[in-house]
C-alpha cells in the first residue's frame, strides 16, 4: 500500500514535470513581469506593498518574500510555480479514493 502511494506521487511528479518544465529554462520576463521586477530592483522588495495595496494587499507580502528568495532570475519563479502546481494536485490524491463509488451512490 505504501509502495503504491509513492508510485502515485512519482507519477504525478512526472506528469507535472512533462507539463510544466521542458521549456521553463527558456522563459524570461513577460508582460507585467517587466515593471514588477524593475520596480522591485530599483526601489526594493517593499515596493510590492505599494503596488498591490490597490486591491490585493496580501499579495505584496508573497511577492516580497518571493523576490527576496528568487531575485531577478525568472527560472526560480518557474520552479516555484511548478512546486505550487504539484501541491495543488497532490492533496486530491488523498481524497479521491472511492470517488467513483461515491458518485455512483449519489446517482
Amino acid at each position: 500500500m505504501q509502495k503504491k502511494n509513492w508510485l502515485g506521487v512519482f507519477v504525478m511528479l512526472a506528469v507535472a514535470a512533462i507539463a510544466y518544465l521542458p521549456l521553463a529554462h527558456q522563459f524570461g520576463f513577460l508582460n507585467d513581469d517587466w515593471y514588477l521586477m524593475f520596480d522591485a530592483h530599483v526601489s526594493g522588495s517593499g515596493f510590492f506593498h505599494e503596488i498591490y495595496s490597490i486591491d490585493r494587499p496580501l499579495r505584496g507580502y508573497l511577492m516580497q518574500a518571493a523576490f527576496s528568495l528568487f531575485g531577478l532570475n525568472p527560472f526560480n519563479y518557474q520552479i516555484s510555480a511548478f512546486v505550487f502546481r504539484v501541491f495543488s494536485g497532490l492533496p486530491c490524491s488523498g481524497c479521491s479514493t472511492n470517488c467513483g463509488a461515491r458518485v455512483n451512490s449519489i446517482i
Partner: protein
Amino acid sequence: MAAILFLIYPGFLSQINPIDYQAQIFSLACGMFSVALTIKAIRAEKCLSGLSLPSYPFAWLDISRMVEYFIGFEVLRLISVGILYWREHEKTITTRLTSAFMAFLPFLASAGGFLIWRLFFLKPSAKPPMSVYKFRNYFHPRLPRSGG
C-alpha cells in the same frame, strides 16, 4: 486520475510568467489543499477537530486579500461537503442538510467576511505608483495614461 487532472486543471494561460502570477498559483495550491483537508476531515468524521483546523487558514489565504476570484473554491467546497453528507442515507434529509450547513458554516463566515470587507471597507488608493504606470504605458501604449 483526479489528482492528475488537478495538476493541469485549471490551466493558467499565464503559467509561463509566474512572477506576475505567483500569487494565483500559490492561491490555487492553498485552495486545493484546503478543500482536500475539509473532505479528509469529514470522511474521517473529525469535522471539528485536528484535520479540519488547518483547512481554515489555507481557505483564508487563498481568497483573502490574495486573489479574490478564488472565492469560487468555496462553491467547490460546498458541493463536496454536500455530496459527502448526502451519502449518509441512514439519516433524515433535514439532518443531512443541517450537518452539511454546520460543516460549511466556518467557511461561509470567512468568505462572507471577505466579501463584506472587499465590497464595503477596502479603500483602494487613488492610483498605482508612478513607475508602474510609466512602464505599463511603455509596454501597453494604448492603455489610458494616469492623471498624475
